[in-house]
């Protein structure tokens, strides 16, 4: 177990290096630079800016410089937010993204499981069809449609929650719900599918034959098996949700890091994009590792080989 963990973590180092290198050079290959904005600059001013950010140096020198910084935990200065370091920006933004994302994943898990179990236990019936239709709708409606609708209905209309902003628990309600919808929908479908696939498995038939109660069969025998696709799905998607959603963060004004990814890329804020890429990549690596560990616990077949 510890051996697996150590080797996986060791592998993470070349993986991260490859990601950083690829992202770094892809950013530089893209046309347009951080100072090609709507507001034009005179040649002298632009030259001074490029010098200040060492953009006048050859790209490989910049790369070496950047890597050396990253190893020491310094992601460099942001090009766009000029008096801020990228590390500082990420430190400030990660908390809100993790909070909203964590709550959304939890809510999605609870809602999705509940809907999935309900649908599976009423297979073929009206409840099943309704639940699955709801799940399809949740998957199909993009968050830039759902989020403003929620804000209009519960914020402007009913005045139950703030339309947008940050600071109190009430501010979390709408973004967390909006963010959780598509994930809840996926989880509901995966749970339903998983349960139905497991129901006909030999060990379930054996349990039935031994007259085990249906509830115990569901919770003790079917679910641990049926939940595996959900766990595999949750890993990478949790990494995505936790690092922030640009749409949700923009519409509800959440001070997270999701917006930095898109804005940074559009503004060619090289260091900011790199910083977010590194955080995102690290999260994916960690979550995939967690998923594998959980799957090992859930599946008796993998336990002996581990």
């Amino acid at each position, binding site marked *: 177990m510890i051996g697996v963990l150590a080797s996986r973590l060791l592998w993470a180092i070349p993986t991260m290096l490859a990601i950083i290198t690829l992202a770094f050079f892809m950013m530089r290959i893209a046309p347009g630079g951080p100072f090609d904005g*709507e507001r034009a*600059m005179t040649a002298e001013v632009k030259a001074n800016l490029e010098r200040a950010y060492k953009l006048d140096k050859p790209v490989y020198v910049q790369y070496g410089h950047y890597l050396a910084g990253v190893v020491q935990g310094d992601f460099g200065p942001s090009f766009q937010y000029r*008096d801020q370091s990228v590390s500082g920006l990420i430190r400030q933004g990660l908390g*809100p993204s993790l909070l909203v994302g964590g709550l959304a994943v939890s809510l999605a898990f609870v809602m999705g499981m509940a809907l999935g179990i309900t649908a599976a236990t009423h297979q073929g019936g009206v409840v099943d069809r309704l639940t699955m239709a709801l799940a399809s709708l949740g998957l199909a409606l993009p968050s830039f449609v759902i989020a403003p609708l929620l804000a209009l209905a519960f914020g*402007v209309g009913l005045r139950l929650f703030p339309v947008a902003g940050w600071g109190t628990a009430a501010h979390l309600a709408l973004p967390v719900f909006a963010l959780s919808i598509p994930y809840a929908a996926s989880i509901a479908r995966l749970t339903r599918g998983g349960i139905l696939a497991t129901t006909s498995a030999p060990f379930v038939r054996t349990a039935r034959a031994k007259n085990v109660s249906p509830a115990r069969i569901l919770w003790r025998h079917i679910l641990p098996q049926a939940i595996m696709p959900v766990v595999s799905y949750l890993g990478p998607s949790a990494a995505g949700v936790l690092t922030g959603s640009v749409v949700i963060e923009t519409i509800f004004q959440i001070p997270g890091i999701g917006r930095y990814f898109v804005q940074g890329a559009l503004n060619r804020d090289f260091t900011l994009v790199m910083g977010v890429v590194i955080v995102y990549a690290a999260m994916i690596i960690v979550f995939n590792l967690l998923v594998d560990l959980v799957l090992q616990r859930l599946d008796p077949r993998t336990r002996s080989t581990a």
Partner: protein
Amino acid sequence: MAIWRVSLAGLFTGSALCNGKPMRPLLICFAIFFSGCGGPIDRPAREDKTHIVRVNDDEVRTLDPHKVSIVTDGRVVGDLFQGLIDLDVSGRPIPGQAQSWSVSDDGLTWVFILRPDLVWSDATPLSAEDFVYSFRRLVLPATAAPYANLVNGWVGARAILKGEAPAERLGVTALDSQTLEIQLIRPEPALLNMLAYAALVPVPRHVIAKHGDAWSRPGTLIGNGAYTLSSWRRQASMEMVKNRRFHAADSVALDRVTYVPISDEMAAVRQFRAGEVDIVPDFPGTMAAVLEQQLGDQVHIGPYLTTFYWVFNTTKPPFDSPAVRRALSMSVDREAIIKSIMRTGNAPAYAMVPPDTGSYGPAHLPDWASWPLEARRTEAKRLLEAVGITPASRLEVVHRYNTSDTYQRIALAIGQMWAELGVDLVLFNSETAVHYAALRSGDYVLGRAGWAADYAAPENFLFVFASASKGLNYPRYRNPRYDELLDAAVSESDVPTRMALMRQAEAILIEDSPILPIFYYVSKYLVADDVTGWSPNVLSAHRSRWLGFAP
């Protein structure tokens, strides 16, 4: 298509409150999608009359005035700092940290007398030396100030900016602790307007000496404006409280100002309707009519010193021919674009300098601007046929623009207007950074651009197309006569003569048509009806020090 339009309009206008009474959520969703009711909205008024919440159109990028490059930053810097000159409620220059000034007869030497007993928000005295330090820091190459070129007309500035001279060579001297002298290489009648700009406020040298580049972060930032920064949660809100040490603190009505960054215009409108914010600095032009219906005179649309135009690459055929450029410019029906696409009553542009820019007066109009559209098209056809472009021969032109629905629609409209002349417009969009990199490097034939005034002076628009304007002169326009006239104009201290020379220069520019001006922008604001001290102005400058609430 039509149905989608209706539902989209519903989505954005969402009359969830048809008659002031809340409805059930499902009903609201339907109402939103199929709304036909656009009656007035009952917006809750603010209870705390000492605290205003303003929307900023994006996250502030820096609070270091020397690093400011966008309006978003300038807006808050204007509350936290004050330059020698400030702007009144109408955007006109008024005494700021300076109480009076005088200018020499040749217009080259200005002397400013500071108000007595000025202090920074931490009570450190503020003297003329602070201004000397600040102006030098602005032009130092190491500062890399995006607006350093504003002071190009000051003695020594350009050489320092290029790293060819030490900062001490800048023509700014503290004659004593309360007297500051600025020396110019050419007269600058608009100097006062310029001095009100965010990049020309003083920065606290005692704080910068201690904290270096990190001085402008919350906790260390010290200013001299009407407000001081109390907290800043990035992407959430910026809180300011009244600066009791501000020289005019007694006249500042509001104790607290909150700026919330909202880049999604629709989200800002929703928050305004919910009464969560009091001033919104922009909204989608397509919503103007609906908002006016719902919010009445809380909607403000006014002229703004910014020009929307297309640029021709004058080094590439067929746009190396002034006649072709002029013909295409002539044949564009600006009124139609404004009426059906912009829908915010913009003024049509036939020239670069917007109307009422400083002392410039009305905008320049080429003679053809007053012709009927048919006559303009006939003349355009004649000019094009002379160089072999006819409806039968077809000329394909690629138009580059930075991705935006509005720009795309404008391009489609113009493409249609040109089709009958034998010109086929091909649209090519890219993201902002790519677009401007292409314009800058000349990798285009026809492109979209815009220019906003940093301060109200015509030279601020016209210098863009001088041969020496490297990096700004996208059309690569070169006309020695234009350069000469512009040089003569900026060397002239007599304002009427100066303006006359500028008008002559602009007449040449428009005759040569390296640009195709289309319209002048408008500023679009939502301002709660109980807010006082707000007045529309062409600079779109609204200092919080003037704001208050009606009792």
